[in-house]
């Protein structure tokens, strides 16, 4: 049997992942969106303030993006 890997879980994390780093920069340049971002895990992964994911989705839609929402009913 393969040895189990040591790991830690982070639950209920809300984040945005972009196709490329430039797009992440573009999102961060949007003032309203940047206010909802609490950190950057990598150049393409932005951590969203807990409980503010709907505001982020709304703002993305206003920017003309079509965010794919993963992990909700229907998706």
């Amino acid at each position, binding site marked *: 049997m393969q040895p189990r890997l040591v*790991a830690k*879980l982070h639950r209920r994390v809300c984040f945005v992942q972009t196709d490329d780093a430039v797009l992440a920069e573009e999102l961060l340049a949007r003032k309203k969106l940047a206010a909802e971002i609490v950190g950057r895990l990598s150049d393409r992964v932005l951590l969203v303030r807990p409980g503010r994911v709907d505001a982020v989705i709304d703002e993305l839609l206003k920017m003309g993006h*079509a965010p794919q929402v993963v992990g909700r009913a229907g998706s």
Partner: protein
Amino acid sequence: MRDTLARYTDVLFRLSTGSLVKPKIGQSIDDLRDRVCDAQSNAPVIDRRLRELPAGAQALVRLMGLSRCPVWKAGHLIALAAAAGHADGFAPVEELLGAGVAFPADEGDSKIADFAAWFGQAGTLAAPVFVHPAVLARARGLVAVPPAKPRGATVGTSDGLEWPLRIAAAWQRSRAAAVKTTLAKTLFKRDLARLQSDELLISPFAESALAVPDAGVLAFEWAVAAGLFRAGVNEFVAEPAIPDWSESPWPTLTHLFARFFAVETWDPRAGYAPSEGGLNPTPTAALAMLDQLARASAPRTAAELAGPLWEHHPSWPSALSRDDARDHGAAWVEAFLQAIAGPLRLVEAVAGEPRAYRLAEFGRHLLCGDPEPPPPPVYAQTLMVQPNAEMIVYRQGLTPRLIAELSRFAAWKRLGTACTLELTADETYRGLESGLTLAVMRQTLDRHAMRPLPANVADLLRRWADKRERVTVYPSATLVEFLSPADLDLALSRGTVAIKLTDRIGLTADGHDPDFRLLRLIGNREYDARPAKCVSIAPDGLTLTVDAGQADLLLEAEIGRLAEPLPLNGTAHRQFRLTPASLRAANSKGMNLESIDRWLGTRAGEPLSAAGRLFLTFDPAPRPQARTCRVVRLPSPEFADGLLQWPDTAELVRERLGPTAVVVDDDRLPELKAKLNGLGIELEEGL
């Protein structure tokens, strides 16, 4: 139902279900509950019990059966029984409960010792009562009805799609944002105004040009009752798709017919009319009136149908407007028949004056037990997509299923004999978000199109779909953090995680929990928990050690802003180092000394070390200088004060080092010597 029976006291349970099941010696109460539940679908047992019921209870359960709606409020049941000629208050409802035919349906968990007391606990008139659908089906046959439809030529027949179309459009137009309700469970003013003024939802009916009062509000409320929305806290949120709408219209119309009786805020004449306590008389008056038509051997006029309601219904006459009350509610009946019963294909008008109504084939199927009518012919190719992305759909080929499918990804623009929809980026996006794929959308269009999809529209759909791949939002994912990049790579190769987010963090494809059997967990953190102390500072003041078990995800993002990672040392604890470069970079990104102190205070319990401050507060201009100077030690502080005050010597002193020591540049020492000589003081030079 088992849970409800568990709330009964033993005495009440045995009293109310004794006629349904005979207890055997040694049988446990749990077994008896199971047998009572099983008995609900045992037709001979139920038939016997129904025949033994008093007349009022029998009439009531039959009307409930006709409605196909298994849950009614006690207040409605009292009104229904009264409309059927049994104005005995709670008695018929209590008789149904006492016979084990009906059951409390409230969400409470308190013990029920007698039903009269339970009504009080559960809201009296609002107390919900449940009858099993199998019992409802048997109850429909309690009264014989005329074996055939009354004679007469039909005037105009509906295709039955008017309400499915409007309900689907109401769902589509309310799925972008939740519809808010007040604490009193009425619609929030802004949402109500939107539904009342939506030109599509309030447009006149295609077949009769009838304008239904507050048709948009009714379409929404009906959609809620039909399960197209789920209730949240003071809001309704659209389900991702319209569930289970069938190819044949009959199952969908049957479902909508049953769910109409759960709409409590609409009146055929007044429109949106929420009432206190939610006991709007429309559902009960409508059901009682349809029952009259089911029993009638000849077509009935609206006035004839309104008469018994006016006479027996306890609350309907008082809810009529003064104008409507003049003709005893005949206008109300006419409005209901034209707005609801006709478009649902329950009734049809018969030629002649005054206009009279009878049940149509589908109405007879629902209310008289006739066989289900054959489904209308299906014309699969019924839509045409134009190069401007508009779509024309002919009603002849529409089915409830096609309405539900199109509603997921195309916007309704016009409802008529030919309906118009539009393919848009927004609706394509919502379709994809509801779980559709581009291929399924194309398949739906191709299967029903009379002409091939224009190339530019196909291209548009593809581009809109591709756009969705660029930004992904995970509202509530579980991230798995490994000790090293190598461990993450191993986890990816084993399939424990599917997506690599950083060099050490991954997640499953759907963002849900990974298979725990493959992991040894050393920590479990909630993202929205308060930041915890999880960093220790080494004696050098610069090396930060992260406690892997305590650290949260934000730490990962935050610590990298002011410290550089050190190579892994084989332990679970990762280390970072504060360097001049890392601190200056943090400073340039807006982290000043105060915010760094605050962050370290939260995460490490102490502020930035002196070494760290040196890196951060050090001002590179002017630079430190090394030069040769002479330290002149003076005999007393007063001597030094004098030396620094006398302008001739003060300009020669570079700096006072202490009470009796000053620094003088090497090249200016002879000058100082000369000045002091002038005062008769000799400066002794040491090596």
